[in-house]
């Protein structure tokens, strides 16, 4: 059996990779995928802890998070479509009318 520590470290790496993607990537679609990666890091952490404790609660919680991620993607993509209609771009740097 894989030790829990490995699972947790892998989950942390996933989370950090997602965070780096959010900060560095300029394409909005990739940025949203990176957020999903962060959430999957969280899911893996929960599942790792649940396995170590021998209970199902972590798994149940991670299903909630999967549902939340789906809802989040729906709203985010809808807003992105609204932006794309007026600007024809998905580059984060070009979406900046307001700066004071």
């Amino acid at each position: 059996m894989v030790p829990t520590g490995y699972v947790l470290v892998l989950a942390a790496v996933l989370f950090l990779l997602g965070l780096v993607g959010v900060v560095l990537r300029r394409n909005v679609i990739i940025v949203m995928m990176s957020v999903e990666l962060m959430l999957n890091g969280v899911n893996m952490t929960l599942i790792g802890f649940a396995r170590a404790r021998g209970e199902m609660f972590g798994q149940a919680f991670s299903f909630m998070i999967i549902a939340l991620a789906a809802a989040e993607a729906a709203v985010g993509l809808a807003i992105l479509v609204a932006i794309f209609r007026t600007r024809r771009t998905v580059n984060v740097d070009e979406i900046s009318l307001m700066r004071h």
Partner: protein
Amino acid sequence: MSFSLNPADFVHLAPVLFLTVWACLVLLASAIGGGHGRHYGLLAILGLILSGLGVALSWVQHVQPATDLFAGMMVVDRFALFLDMIFIIAGILTALVADAYLEEHRFTEGEFFALLLLSISGMMMMVHAGDLVMFVIGLETMSLAIYALVASWPGQRRSAEAGFKYFLMGAVASAFLLYGIALLYGVTGTTNLAKLAGVINGKAGEPLVLVGMFMILGAMGFKVALVPFHMWTPDAYEGAPTPVTGFMAAAVKAAGFGALLRLVAGLFSADAWTFGSTGWINIFWVLSVLTMTIGNISALRQNNVKRMLAYSSIAHAGYLLIGVVVVGLDPSQMGAVLFYVVAYAVTTLGAFAVVAWIGSRDVERTTLEDWYGVAKHHPAVALAMMLFLFSLGGLPPTAGFFAKFYLFKAALSFDSPQMLTLVLIAIANSVVSMYYYLRPIVAMYFREGASAPKPLTSFSVYWVLGITSALVLILGMAPDATLAWAAQALMGG
């Protein structure tokens, strides 16, 4: 963990469920009856009033807190019921303003009000949460609806951009929040707040708990716009349709602080809060000073009234953090904090109602130059705005004065030098803030406008201005009744 569903629990959930169902009905009505100019706001208000009656009924019949609803997921205590009432009243006032505003700016109405109701149901879930899972679901229900509301202005680039920025940063904040919760679950084996409160003081020094708590704190700081997590606030507040901005500044902030009080002040015992022990209080002290000072200094140089009020709301989050510290040290002081939340929410809703009122189709009129000479053409509205700005600044005889007075009095009751410094910094900040609160007043009263403003003429906006200015005066001259209610609204009470 055993789980058995008790049908009687649904009675307590009724106001939340009702709002959710009502939101779907509003959507359905707009799908059948067309999207524009049909006053779905009135339908939404009817739903809010009915839900509010349910909340009022459970406040009146409340004998003891119910903590074990849905296997501990939901808590019904007077603290949560009091905040429910704030959300519902803020929702009604917002719907009244929006009714006129949306018609003027050609929104499709059905979705707007449905999202408003859904976000309120999310807020209610959030403050009723007895478990971190429930808290996250409430927070996301609220946030997703608010992201969509911010971006809901059809054809406006700024609105979509504001919504997107808010969404993206909010999504990252949620990921941090969830990671923090996962770490707490890993160390303690539970996400139930009551059970966590029992074990967390003994594990407060463990690195995973510390990291988890900091992640949760950062995410909550994002939601209530604390410095240094406030970067989204001015853009989102400026780009959003003005009624939504007012709703975010009043209700979303109240919900965020309600949840923060429940999570942080409820989780740690008073010992963990005192200066010099594990030192949670020091973190809040620094956050509070940073938030109010940077909020106020940034507001000083704004010529856009909407943006200025956005920074002002950041500064007020700083004052409210004093309240979080106070409640952490002594939970019985909750009344002063909740009174501040009420006074701030009413005043902000009024101020943003004036900002929504002054714009006409495709012209927002939010810079100071646009406000020149308003007092000459519309003396009553100018007077109301002056009242709101005085209240935000904390001058008597307005609600803001007593709110600050009771909050600072509660903070000084601990007789510690750190609290004294905190209050002194807050008072210095209030004095500085008067400068930028006076600027719109000077613009309205002492400058000549090039052209007369063509504001919204619908009566619903004037209703809101009348109600909020009356409340600001009543809270400012006879605060006792509200204060007595707020004092009953204890966590677990």
